[in-house]
């Protein structure tokens, strides 16, 4: 469609309004915009409302832990990725926010795109990123009293939940036979990660 903009043009528009935004590329040349956490709500509103951009749809919001990712330079942040899509102009954009893993806090965009409410709850549940300003930041998949955030790379598997062991009788993780071809087992990780912010 003729009104669709390329990544460079979109990045140009966003950068002219918010100079702190950087255009980046992943290792396999997928472009994205790095947005500082503080600027995110303003950038999001710009992206949704600017007539030439009109990103009316948040197609996906997810994140991953960079702790074991062989990036250059190495990082221990948690990447939160926003995949935007414009149904009006039919173009795409990927935003990323890097949240430090110890105090992972990102402003919520649930006021901009309503669906972000659910996506952010999922990212909070599985990766432990607290979205400030979220109306209902509670766990969505795991039970409310679950310890740790499963998709973090230093997550320690629990042996039991509320006294219910989830392995067969007599079997424990350290006893499970190693798989052929697997690397030697890594030394046991640190204590389970605590949820960084207790939601209201």
């Amino acid at each position, binding site marked *: 469609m003729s009104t669709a903009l390329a990544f460079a043009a979109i990045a140009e528009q966003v950068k002219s309004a918010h100079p702190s935004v950087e255009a980046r590329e992943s290792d396999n040349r997928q472009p994205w915009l790095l947005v500082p956490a503080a600027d995110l709500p303003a950038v999001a509103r710009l992206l949704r409302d600017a007539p030439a951009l009109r990103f009316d749809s948040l197609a996906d919001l997810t994140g991953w832990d960079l702790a074991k990712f*062989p990036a250059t330079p190495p990082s221990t942040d948690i990447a939160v990725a926003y995949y935007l899509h414009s149904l009006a102009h039919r173009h795409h954009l990927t935003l990323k926010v890097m949240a430090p893993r110890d105090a992972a806090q990102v402003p919520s965009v649930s006021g901009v795109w309503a669906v972000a409410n659910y996506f952010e709850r999922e990212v909070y549940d599985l990766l432990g990123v607290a979205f400030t300003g979220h109306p209902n930041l509670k766990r969505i*998949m795991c039970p409310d009293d679950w310890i740790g955030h499963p*998709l973090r790379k230093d997550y320690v598997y629990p042996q039991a939940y509320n006294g219910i062991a989830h392995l067969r009788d007599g079997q424990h993780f350290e006893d499970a036979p190693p798989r052929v071809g697997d690397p030697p087992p890594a030394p046991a990780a640190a204590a389970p990660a605590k949820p960084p912010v207790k939601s209201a």
Partner: protein
Amino acid sequence: MSTDVTVETLGGERMKLNMGPHHPATHGVLRLMVETDGEIVAKAVPDHGFLHRSIEKIGECVEWPMFVPYTDRIDYVCAMNANLAYCVAVEKLLNTDPATAVQVPLRAECIRIIVAELNRISSHLVAVGAMSMDLGAYTPFLHGIAQRETVNDIFEKLCGQRLTYNFVTIGGVAFDLHKGAEAEITAFLDAFEKEMIRFNKLITANTIFRDRCAGVAAISAADAVAYGLVGPNLRGSGVDWDIRRDEPYGIYDRLAVRVPVGQGFAGRNGRVGDCYDRFVVRLLEINESVRLVREALKMLPAPVEKKTDATGGYQADVAKQLRKPPKGEVRVRTEAPRGEMGYVIVSDGSKTPYRVRCRTGSFTACSIFQKLMRGIFMADIVTVIGSFDIVVPEIDR
């Protein structure tokens, strides 16, 4: 026609009601915490996670091809589409580097279209059947299931399973079409079209059914987009967006996909984006899928002996590429029966994915429940749930 009573006019005394996780109309283990005043719902809050099996975490622990059986379990009602979404995503990742590029044979692409569209038919049959069952008509559901069984028979001959197929693989499909498959599929489609007319006479044209769905939980196009509705739910609200046509993957760009959108099919009482529109859009999509399967069958190249052949083969050799895929990330959107099934895949260059993220249609559909379920009748809750065609493992993954 929806209720004339608004939430604001309700009395102060509310009854709390737990619908689910064992309620017959919540399609699995979904729980709704409902507050009602008599028959009118003041508030309904969905509660998820009863079926959370950490499939995304498993994705980080198994090798690239070993995740395909797990995608079956993400959405078991349309496992072919779920397989396809993941495989397309991994292929796109491999294709970002010329050194690991993979060329899926044309015949495999055609077979993928055939099985995906057949599975879309059988999945929509469950959707419309289950919705009519929620509204008290049990017979159409079983007739839909009977047709689905025929599709399952075809799939069983094709790949040996009836529910969790694990048929689409990275680089192609696991098996070539079995002998006589084309004739079988054509025969099924011919019989199926006649059967669907009777199905529609029985339930779609029924005024009781139409009046129960008409005007209930109508979603405006702007709301549908903002709440991330996808697939038939989005199109029911009149938004003309189909990934098969607008961002084609595979060889969908060679098939002119016609996209039905909601137009207020219910007539007098109906509004664009109500439950009836979502229901009818699914039925129209079934017809469109029938046409696509026929077209794909026409395009199917002749099979050749060599299975990695670029035209007549069915499986490109990807074992070497998967041992050392390019480092980086990729995002792919595919159109599953329940809407967009999008994968975000992050690779650290090893034989195991670094992160596999699956975005499903049912999950985002639940985000609008709380907004919709205000001031409707108790009985409309099941209509709304049925019209969104949620599959709970897809929500909880």
